[in-house]
Structures are given as structure tokens and as C-alpha cells.
């Protein structure tokens, strides 16, 4: 990019020595969706260097994990990425179940998939509304929250909570789903499909949106690989990497769905990946409801006091923002020796400094919004 190269030189376009100034975006700024600070060295409207400064909402979740039993740590997992709490709990209980060699009943796995995919849609809806808010469009947020409200009501009915569910338990689920949930979810799937069509004509095809996103903030495959970016970011760069397909877990191998990818790598590609993913999640939910097996939702003989055999165990899931992985190191005690939480937003944001160099400030905000950051997910 021409501007990018120009900004590296000492002399500006008019022949005068280059002068830069530093501004802070955040730690409280509407476009950062939380307490993220970006230290920006600017040359006029152009970014010379944008350095994210993290840690404003750091809670030391990993240390908390070393102070309590596995079951006691479970509520923490909903509070890392609070918009995608189901999948995060899944990653943690999955690691414990792998270490303890617990067999989760099929019905529980199916319900885990249904609730995770509902949670994915609700998370993408928040992103969609907030992203368009960043770009200056207020109305879509109201549509998004209208649909999300239906998901929250459904999940509240079975989990008792609207955001931090802690619904999965080590070995299964907190409780079974009822008819109200199944009927309500079917009704929601039927309602949501035409809504996605409407979003397309209302927003996606809008010429103003397209001009703000197409060819803005391109991220190459190679950059994704070097920074470990996952989720819609890497899929928007044309790599069909999705943990649900590459390292299948839970009941995902039993469903027919595709991984949407777009080759362009720009902000529009990441936008389209998420819009397409919502349609795929609806497909998964529908299939899981059709095939939902009967039976218990909790494994037999889950020990009241759980001691994992010494060693380390990993488990990865596809959260709404990408690959979430848990590593448990056990020394055969009730309390974990070490819990490492690998969160997708951290890796996805780490490429921002390189990707945003030379961009106009409003374009960089479009790029940042297209990364779908959740700051507590970075800071933990």
C-alpha cells in the first residue's frame, strides 16, 4: 500500500519533516467495547503505529484456578468471554472429562451443541449490532437485540441465567431441557431465517456499508498463521479452519454443516463469514433437535471429589471468536496445579498493530470492529 510505505519515511508528502503525534483511543471509548486502550501514533488522519495496551480488566483467572477445585472453577469459565459463555464452559468441562475419562451421555452432548450454537448466534448478533454502531448505523443494533432477546429467554428457561450460564457440568448438564425449550427453539429457528434474509437486504447490500468495508483492513493467510489468528478472522482470509471440523468434538461430527470462508481477507469478508455462520448454526440446531436422543443428561459415577491423574490435558473448542483451548496440569490433587486458558481474542488482536499501519483512523476502527473483540477474553 502506497500510504503505508510513505509513512515509513522521515519526509512527508509536502517535503517537510514528518511530524507525528500520539493519541489514546480508550481505555474508555465507545469503539473499543470495553476497557481496551490503543496508543496511536498519528500523522494527520493516518496511523503510523497503533499499539494496543491490554490488562485494564485483568482478573487473573488462571491464578483463581489454582485455588479451587475443578467444580468450583466452573463459574469462572462463563466470565472470560461473557458473550460466548457456553462454549467456554464446554472447553473447560471437556478438558476435565478427558482427564477423568468420563463418558458424557449422547443427549447431553446434543443439548451442549444446541445451546452452544444458540449462544454463537446471540454472540454474533451482539457483534453485528455493535459493529454497525461503530460504523455509524444505529438501527441494526435494535433488530439484533430483538432477536438476541429470544435466545436469552430460551436459555434463561433452562439455565436460570441470561449471560453467565454455567450450564454444563463435569460429566453432563445441570438439568435436562423441557418441551418449552424445544418448541421455543424450533419457533426461533423458523423466525430467524427470514430475519437473516432481511438483514441482507437491510444492511449487507447497503452501498455505504460496502464502501466502508470492502478492501478495508486486509489480513493475509500468512499473517493469520504467524499471529495464530482463528475463528472468523482466519476464515475471512480464506482458510477453512474451524475446530468443529478440524478437531471434531462433542456431537459435531453427526451434523451436516459447512464452514463458510471468504478469500478476500478484508473487513467485508469477516462480516460475511459471521452472517453465514448464523445460518449454519441454525442448520445445526435444527438437525440436533430432530435427532435429539433420549436418556440421561449426566454421566454415571461422577466422583464427588474429583482428582485428575497427574499429567497435562488439553481441550479445544470453537468459540464464537475462534479457537478456545484449555490446558490443565494436574498433580493428582483436588485442586489443579495449573490452568492455562488460550483465548482467541488475544491472538486476533495481536495482529492489529501490523494490520493497521498506514490506515486511516476511521478505517482502523472498522478493522478493529471486524475482529470482534471481547476485552475480558483478552485480559482474563
Amino acid at each position, binding site marked *: 500500500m502506497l500510504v503505508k510505505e510513505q509513512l515509513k519515511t522521515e519526509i512527508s508528502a509536502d517535503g517537510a519533516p514528518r511530524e507525528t503525534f500520539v493519541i489514546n483511543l480508550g481505555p474508555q471509548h465507545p469503539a473499543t467495547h470495553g476497557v481496551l486502550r490503543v496508543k496511536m501514533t498519528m500523522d494527520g488522519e493516518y496511523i503510523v503505529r497503533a499499539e494496543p495496551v491490554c490488562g485494564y480488566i485483568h482478573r487473573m483467572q488462571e*491464578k483463581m484456578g489454582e485455588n479451587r477445585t475443578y467444580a468450583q472453577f466452573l463459574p469462572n469459565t462463563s466470565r472470560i468471554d461473557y458473550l460466548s459463555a457456553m462454549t467456554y464452559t464446554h472447553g473447560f468441562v471437556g478438558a476435565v472429562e478427558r482427564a477423568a475419562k468420563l463418558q458424557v451421555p449422547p443427549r447431553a452432548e446434543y443439548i451442549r451443541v444446541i445451546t452452544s450454537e444458540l449462544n454463537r448466534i446471540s454472540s454474533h448478533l451482539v457483534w453485528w449490532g455493535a459493529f454497525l454502531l461503530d460504523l455509524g448505523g444505529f438501527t441494526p443494533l435494535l433488530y439484533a437485540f430483538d432477536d438476541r432477546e429470544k435466545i436469552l429467554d430460551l436459555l434463561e428457561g433452562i439455565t436460570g441465567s441470561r449471560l453467565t450460564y454455567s450450564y454444563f457440568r463435569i460429566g453432563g448438564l445441570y438439568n435436562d431441557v423441557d418441551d418449552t425449550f424445544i418448541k421455543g427453539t424450533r419457533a426461533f429457528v423458523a423466525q430467524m431465517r427470514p430475519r437473516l434474509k432481511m438483514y441482507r437486504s437491510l444492511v449487507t447490500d447497503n452501498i455505504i456499508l460496502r464502501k466502508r468495508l470492502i478492501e478495508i483492513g486486509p489480513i493475509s493467510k500468512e499473517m493469520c*498463521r504467524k499471529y*495464530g489468528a482463528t475463528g472468523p478472522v*482466519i476464515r475471512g482470509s480464506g482458510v477453512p479452519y474451524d475446530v468443529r471440523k478440524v478437531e471434531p468434538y462433542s456431537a459435531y461430527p453427526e451434523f451436516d454443516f459447512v464452514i463458510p470462508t471468504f478469500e478476500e481477507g478484508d473487513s467485508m469478508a469477516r462480516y460475511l463469514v459471521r452472517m453465514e455462520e448464523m445460518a449454519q448454526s441454525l442448520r445445526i440446531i435444527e438437525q440436533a433437535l430432530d435427532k435429539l436422543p433420549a436418556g440421561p443428561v449426566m454421566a454415571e459415577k461422577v466422583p464427588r471429589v474429583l482428582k485428575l491423574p497427574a499429567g497435562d490435558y488439553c481441550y479445544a473448542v470453537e468459540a464464537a471468536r475462534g479457537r478456545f483451548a484449555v490446558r490443565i496440569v494436574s498433580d493428582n490433587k483436588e485442586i489443579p496445579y495449573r490452568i492455562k486458558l488460550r483465548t482467541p481474542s488475544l491472538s486476533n488482536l495481536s495482529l492489529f498493530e501490523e494490520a493497521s499501519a498506514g490506515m486511516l483512523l476511521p478505517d482502523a476502527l472498522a478493522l478493529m470492529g471486524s475482529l470482534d473483540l471481547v476485552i475480558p477474553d483478552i485480559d482474563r
Partner: protein
Amino acid sequence: MNPLSPQPQGNTPQPVPAPAPSAPAAPKVAATAGQQEPVISNQSSVASKPAAAAAPPPPAPVLPNPLAHLSLPFHGVDYAAKGYHVEAAVAPDQVVFAAEQLDKEGLSLDTITGVDWMAEGQMEVVYDYFHPAKALRVVVRARIPRDNPEIATIQKVFPGANWHEREAHDFFGIRFLGHPNLTPFLLPEDATYHPLRKDFTQC
């Protein structure tokens, strides 16, 4: 060649990479450079000493090792039990070489973290890698002395390591030599404590 495309397995056998002059392979590593499957110890590698204390290998099924052609002590792991496919315990001066090799294989950096083995006086540095096109998770481990935790940065190979190394420095006090900006990342900017060290008390 696009590094993200699946690697052709087998039809063009990759030569055993010669150790780069900047990252000399340790003799014990060169000894395993042959094509044979390394012996798998079913002992937990977490609990084992880094210098491969040659525990008597009990008969264990040989697990597939897609990285057997690399001149590093990779061995296959039971994915269903552990959650990763291949692991290797390497000497601390080998981590950059390992990163370069895995970079050539088209892997991506997942995360870097530490584990404090206080009783053994050691600090373990764990490098997680994943392949963006196929099911291949690789774990590289190195052990360094706990009272002087220093290891080379892999930031030049994987720029994404920058933040992970800063985080490991925050939590464990591991100094990544050659890191351009080893300042507090998640902790307050004046933090001098390392909360995940096992001897950490209230700050």
C-alpha cells in the same frame, strides 16, 4: 508455496533439515534424526526431567508421528487421552530451532505459557502449535532453572509470540532474551511480582 496449503505427505519426502548455524542442534537431538519412530514413554512428560532421563521404556503402542522427519525428538501422543498429537521435550537452546522447523511445516503458534515446578527447582516453558489445515497439535516443552529463568524469544519466527511471551514474563518472571518489549502486559505497569510462581504470596 502457500504455507497454509496441506503439506504433501510422503510424495516428496522432505530432507532432514540441516541444523541452522544460528541454532546448532544438540548432539542428543541429532542422535534421533533418523527416520525410526522414537520410543514412547507412557510416563507423563510433565513429571519427567527435561534432559530425557532415559527412563526404562515400557512396551507401549507406537503412535503415529507426522513430524518424524524433523530432527527434533518429537513423538506421537494419544490424542483422545491428552488432546494433542505430537510432543517434544527439547533443550532450552532448541526452542527457536523448533519454532523455525514448525514454521516451515506450516504450523501456527497457539500459545506460550509456563508451569512452575517449584519442588524440582525448574520452570517449564510450553509452546503450543496447531496446524491451520489439518488435525495436528504440537507441544514443545523446555525446562529452565527456576532461579534464573531465561530462554530465547521466538518472536522473530512467530510475531504472535510477542504477547504470549510478555504474558509468560508477567506471570512467571521468565525472561525471553531478545524480546523487543518485555514490559508488563496484563499486570499493572509497575508490577514487580509474578503471581503464578508457586511461592507467590499477597502483593
